[in-house]
């Protein structure tokens, strides 16, 4: 692909986002939050995965990371990363941690835990 007349920002990757997502703008599932924790299956081969998905798997194999962290480490927009993650969930390469969703704003127990944790920093 040639960049054509479009001026590219120097800190942008060589490959444009729509190439990474194979032209798709929306993930196959809509359950991913910025703080959804991702765990990589370590028993599935990475053959057939495109370079970005492979990097994503290698990033997550040593331990869990949130969607936002994966986007930051891969230097890809969150919307692009969500498409990749949804594919990898479909193929069984990625699972999200437990069935516990990110905190609900009204969850008093979570608030207390957060408060205790912050106080322990002082």
């Amino acid at each position, binding site marked *: 692909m040639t960049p054509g007349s479009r001026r590219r920002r120097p800190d942008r990757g060589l490959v444009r986002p729509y190439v990474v997502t194979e032209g798709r703008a929306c993930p196959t599932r809509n359950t991913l939050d910025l703080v959804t924790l991702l765990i990589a299956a370590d028993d599935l081969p990475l053959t057939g995965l495109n370079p970005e998905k492979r990097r994503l798997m290698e990033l997550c194999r040593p331990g869990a990371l949130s969607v936002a962290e994966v986007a930051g480490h891969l230097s890809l*927009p969150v919307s692009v990363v969500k498409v990749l993650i949804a594919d990898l969930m479909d193929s069984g390469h990625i699972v999200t941690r437990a069935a516990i969703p990110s905190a609900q704003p009204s969850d008093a127990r979570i608030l207390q835990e957060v408060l205790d944790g912050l106080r322990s920093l002082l």
Partner: protein
Amino acid sequence: MGSAPSSDRGAVGHAAAGHHSGVHVGPGVRTAAKLLVVGHFAVGKTTFVGALSEIRPLHTEELMTQAGALVDDLAGVSGKTTTTVAMDFGRLTLSDSLVLYLFGAPGQHRFTRLWQDMTRGALGALVLADTRRLSSSFDVMGVLEELAIPYAVAVNEFPGAPAHTLDEIREALDLLDETPLVRCDARDRASSARALIALVEYLQSRTGHARPLEQA
């Protein structure tokens, strides 16, 4: 903003160097909570996140193709069909089972899509304010109120900024009596933690369950 997404990063180095706990989330972590750190351009959001984060604060950019493009002045920018919104965030492990993510982002109305994504599931927001530009905080607070996100306000004290009492600042910002207003130094870990504590105490008081529920 769209043309200089990285310029909001604080000049002061983040203070996280002394408490790194590795890149990955701990193996026992089951819950990820989210708090927002919002405020106008160059108010110290990234510095604040960096002071508390155990990881080097990460940076992502989101491509905005519609809402932003309509508002952006594209005259003279040939071929520009998208704009980018920068988001900086950090992580703080609060217990064996809980991590807290702090998301710092600009509070402009035109970034509504990013806001909806970023704020989903957020416990609340800390609005950073600068006494030299208090009126710049209204836009941010307006967005939070529209999205019904509870917030506290922390005045990031810049050297040489005019000294006002908190009462004066409260009046200038037209805050509700219940909205917490504190001072903080975004470069200082303990000071930043205290500002978040004020926020979370407020969130707790709003739920009406000040004491912890029994663990499930």
